[in-house]
Structures are given as structure tokens and as C-alpha cells.
């Protein structure tokens, strides 16, 4: 028996629906069809009236979740693709994000964003929007990379009283598996995890590029280079302390993200470490992002557009030769 990242997302929602009558899911094609990626497969049948097809109206989907959460519900909004949340941007950042500070009333909303690229998905079904939402106050942004995190974080997102952008990476849906779901649910938003210990360089990443980073680390190990890989898990709040502690041991920092370079998660991590840990650094901190173009359709272009194990290996070698 094994369970995929995608199934963990479905199971977390089933559990939340079972345990809390105030939870419901609203999104496009999520009822009978079970969602574009089948993240809500059979849930409508299991929970009648609580898994509802919405019109193609991302702005109104989020707006309706704001109203429902004000009246005591804990809505989950499924965006069909993270890219389409651009059409709900105003309600997410200006309405939901600003609500608690303005009025003192919090909005327990979970917005699921099928995030990140897949070969052949092209410019409008591949975007990584975590930096964009992390920029605005009043929002929590989660970026799970493992089955355990996908499950636990989604349950935590639903339990939290604030709006959460839950960025589920589409590349991981059926590629990442575990033996079973975690036996006990644990909440750990805001805590990064060291996925691989190493002495020579700290590599900070999250979501799908975690696997590129781990592959690069194995490759580098063959050359006798031993790097540490930290998975941020939530990009907002950002666990600066765990990164600082690692950099204190290694003296080198490389950040890797599938997002665009300008002002992204990588830039934020580097700014913090440069500011708080300048004395710990033996080389200039570096970053690897996807290229500053729209995300290309052809799988060969796509592979060359995003960071890869090979580009990470190359960058680490350069940095350690510095």
C-alpha cells in the first residue's frame, strides 16, 4: 500500500469534512467530476451539499468564502490552477488579507492553489505564485513537499483562523508517495526542516525543487561535497532561525525556487541571512530561480527554464570554488 501526495490532499479534506460540519469545499468541477486533478474524488457523494461546483468566477469564489467564514464556516476554495487565482487576486489580498487588521475579525479560509509546473502545461497552467501572496500582509502561505506535509498542513490550514494559501505542487501530485498517512496529525506551520544534513553548504528550497536539491546533493556526494538541504515548508511565515543555524555551520547559502527571480522567496531568504548572518557567510549567497520569461510549453524548454539537479550541482561547484 502506498499513498500519493494528491491522495493525501483528498484524505485531509475528507477528514476535515467528517470532523467539522462547518467545513465545505467550493470550486470548479469539484463535485461530480471530482476536480481537474481529482483532489475531491467522491467527496461530493460522501458529503452531500458540502462539495459544491462553483461558476467560473475566481473573484466571487474567494468573496463567497469571505462571507461564509464571517458567518462561522471554514471554507476550502479550490482554484483549478494557481494561475487562475490571478482572477481572484483582489479578494485574496485586498479583502481577505486586510480583514483581520482592519476589523479585528479573522477569516478562516483555505485557498488551495495547484501550483508550479508540469511538462507541457505552458505559460498559464504552471505558475508558482507563493511569493506573490507572501508579499501581502494577513496571509499564510504553505508549500508542502511531502505526503506527510501535504496532509498535516492542509488540516492545519483548515484549522487556522487566518486565510491560508495552500500551494500544492502539481508535479508532486502522483510522483511523491509514502507508505501511509501520518498516524497522528501534527501542526508545524512556520517550521522549516532539514531534509539532509551536510557540512559544506546550506541549500534552502521548498516544494518540487526539494527533490531536485536532494538529487543534486546525492550527485555532489559522489564528488565528496556534502551539502545540507533545508525545506522551508511554509514560506510565510519564514523560519529564518533554522536557516541561520545551518549557515552558521556551513558558511555558504544557496536558495532554490521554481518561482521567478525578482523579489521572490529566494530574495527574501538571502536578504534575511545577509542582514542577520553576514558574519557567518564565507561566500556571497546565491540563488537559482526559473528564468525571467513566461513558462514555456515544450518539455525541453520547460526543463531548461526551471532549476534542475544539474543546474544546482553546477552552481554549488562554482560557489565552493569561490
Amino acid at each position, binding site marked *: 500500500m502506498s499513498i500519493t501526495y494528491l491522495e493525501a490532499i483528498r484524505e485531509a479534506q475528507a477528514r476535515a469534512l467528517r470532523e467539522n460540519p462547518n467545513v465545505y469545499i467550493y470550486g470548479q468541477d469539484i463535485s461530480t467530476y471530482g476536480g481537474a486533478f481529482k483532489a475531491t474524488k467522491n467527496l461530493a457523494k460522501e458529503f452531500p*451539499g458540502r462539495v459544491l461546483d462553483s461558476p467560473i468566477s475566481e*473573484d466571487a469564489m474567494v468573496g463567497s468564502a469571505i*462571507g461564509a467564514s464571517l458567518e*462561522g*464556516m471554514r471554507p476550502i476554495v479550490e482554484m483549478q490552477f494557481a494561475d487562475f487565482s490571478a482572477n481572484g487576486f483582489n479578494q485574496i489580498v485586498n479583502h481577505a488579507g486586510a480583514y483581520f487588521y482592519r476589523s479585528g*475579525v479573522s477569516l478562516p479560509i483555505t485557498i488551495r492553489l495547484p501550483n508550479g509546473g508540469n511538462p507541457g502545461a505552458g505559460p498559464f497552467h504552471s505558475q508558482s505564485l507563493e511569493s506573490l501572496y507572501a508579499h501581502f500582509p494577513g496571509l499564510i502561505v504553505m508549500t508542502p513537499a511531502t505526503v506527510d506535509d501535504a496532509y498535516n498542513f492542509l488540516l492545519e490550514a483548515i484549522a487556522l483562523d487566518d486565510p491560508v494559501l495552500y500551494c500544492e505542487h502539481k508535479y508532486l501530485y502522483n510522483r511523491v508517495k509514502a507508505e501511509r498517512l501520518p498516524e497522528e496529525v501534527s501542526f508545524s506551520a512556520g517550521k522549516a526542516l532539514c531534509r539532509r544534513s551536510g557540512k559544506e553548504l546550506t541549500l534552502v528550497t521548498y516544494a518540487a525543487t526539494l527533490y531536485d536539491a536532494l538529487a543534486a546533493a546525492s550527485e555532489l556526494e559522489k564528488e565528496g561535497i556534502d551539502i545540507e538541504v533545508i525545506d522551508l515548508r511554509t514560506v510565510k511565515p*519564514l523560519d529564518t532561525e533554522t536557516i541561520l543555524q545551518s549557515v552558521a555551520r556551513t558558511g555558504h547559502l544557496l536558495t532554490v525556487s521554481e518561482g521567478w527571480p525578482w523579489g521572490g522567496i529566494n530574495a527574501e531568504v538571502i536578504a534575511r541571512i545577509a542582514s542577520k548572518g553576514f558574519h557567518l557567510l564565507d561566500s556571497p549567497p546565491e540563488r537559482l530561480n526559473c528564468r525571467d520569461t513566461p513558462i514555456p510549453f515544450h518539455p525541453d524548454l520547460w526543463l531548461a527554464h526551471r532549476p534542475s539537479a544539474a543546474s544546482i550541482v553546477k552552481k554549488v561547484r562554482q560557489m565552493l570554488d569561490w
Partner: protein
Amino acid sequence: MLNTLREPESETIHLGFKELYVRAFKWMLLARTVEDKVAALWHAGKIAGGCYLGKGQEAVSVAVGIMLRPGDIFAPLIRDQAGRLAFGEPLFDILRTYLGKKTGPMRGRDGNVHRGRPKEGIYPMVSHLGATASVITGALMARRMQGETGIVGATSIGDGGSSTGSFHEGFNMAAVERVPLVMTVTNNHYAYSTPNSRQFACHDLVDRAIGYGVEGYSMDGTDLKECLEIASHAVERARSGFGVQMIVASCVRLTGHAEHDDGFYMDKTLLDSPIGRDCLNVAQAHVVEQGWADEVTVQEWRQQAKAQVEDTLQKVQREPTPDPADEDWHSLASAHLIDPEYAE
């Protein structure tokens, strides 16, 4: 969720039409009086930011606000002072919010018309027009999922706001979900400075009701009698399960978009036309004509409204504004997830 703003005896459902009309007229008077005061404070430099008045739209706004009951939900827009008061928003809220007082519902964190008490059924608006249509739809869906019936949600939009995608998405969703929503579209003929001819191409905004699949009504927004009759009908239809109701009111904004704008671009012939009438004068004439009150009594009501506003203002002016040194600069309810980077 119980609306705690209003005392139960102020429920309007059992009132005769005369009492309803007079009560609505008094809310209009109070709204106009407090907004005139706010405008004076703005011109005296006592208010930061903009100053947005509902002058000329009190009849439309009050008619919907007064039909709502405790437990209903209201998401007012910028020219809804009369409706807010009729629904139960305390007079303190407008003055405290315009003056940025810490005691107000927004505590100086948001100002002017961006205020509300979400837990008591009045939702604070954002500046992005049309956004409330879906918010109130979701709130009504929630009430239905919780098994509540017989409640109504109301929100407003203008001729300009009705052009936004957000309005269309939210209103279409309301119709699809068949929620008990009353949407008032007040066509005051100018969105800031933009006339109807640059805003929409249909003959009349009420024609859109057919497209949305909802029940639609037109009304003369300067005539309180007509406004009360239509609003009463629409609110009752929504309450009884007939789905979304769309009211399109016609009137003219008797002020600029805000106090910094003198409305020089407005077509004077519109102001001289029947919909250019001041709804407050029309209502007062009706009260006197019907013999519900004489001129002297109406004058007394005006004085009472003034006294109430002055009294409230005096109290509010003595209240503290927020101290930046004491401000809690956090935007999450989940205190344990506040990034230590921003903890200080």
C-alpha cells in the same frame, strides 16, 4: 448569529405605512445632518483622507436598511449612511471612523465609509467595487448550510460599480446559488465624473435582471414612498424564498464624488429634471401634505437630529486617536504564526 445593534422594538415589520415613512424620513434627516457635519469638519481640515456623502441617495438607502431585521446581513456601499442608521449602526461609528478614533469599529486602521461590525451583520466595504456581491452571497450560503431560513442579505452598487467584473461574478453567483439577496443598484448618473453614456450601453440597468435570471424593479430614487414600497416588496420576496432581487433606483448625486470634487462636469438639465429633486425635500413635503406632521414639528425633528449629532460629536472629539507606539502591528489572528522578523 444575532444582530445586537438594534433593540427589538425598533422592528419595522408591524408598523403602519405612516409610521414607517416617518421613521424612514427621520433616519434620512439624521443621515443628512451627520454627513453635513462631516463635510464641514472635512472642509475645516479636521478629517484625513476623503469624504464621501450620500446626499440625494438617502431615500434609496433608508428604504432597504429599514426593511432589514435583526439577524439580517447588510453590506453597505459609500452612499449608504441612511441605510446604515436604519439597520442599526450607531451614530458614533461614522464620526469615530471619519475622525480616526481608536474607539471606533476600525480603530483608526481604516477610515470614512470603510467601516462595519462584521459580527453584528454590517460588513465593512473595501474600495474595490463589486466585491461585496459575492461576500454577502457566501454569507447567505453559510446561513443556509447552518439551517437558517427567513433571513435576507442586502448590498448596494452604483452605475459605475455595476461595470466591474467582480460585481458580475458575485451577482451571477448569487443568482446561481439562489440566495435571499437584495441588490440595490443606485444609478446616480455619474461614477466619479463618468456619465452613464461611458459606463454602459444597455437601455436601462434593470434590463440586466433578465440576463441574470433574477427579479428586477425600477424605482424613482427621489420618492421615499416608492422606494419604501419597492424595497418592502423585494425584501419580502427574498425572505420568502423567491431568490435574488434587483432594485434599480434612479436619482442624481447631489454632491461631487467626494468633498474635494465640486461636480462641475454634471449636466445641469439632469439636476433640473424630476430625478434631480432632493429626496429629503420630497419626503418632507409628503409628510406635511399627508398631515403626518406640520412644518413646526418637522423643524423640531431637524433640531433634534442636529442636537444628537452635536452631542455625539462632542463626546467623540474627546476620545483618543490611536498611538503608533501602542499599535499592534500584526495582521494575523494566529499569534503563534507571526514571523519573528516582524514581531517588534
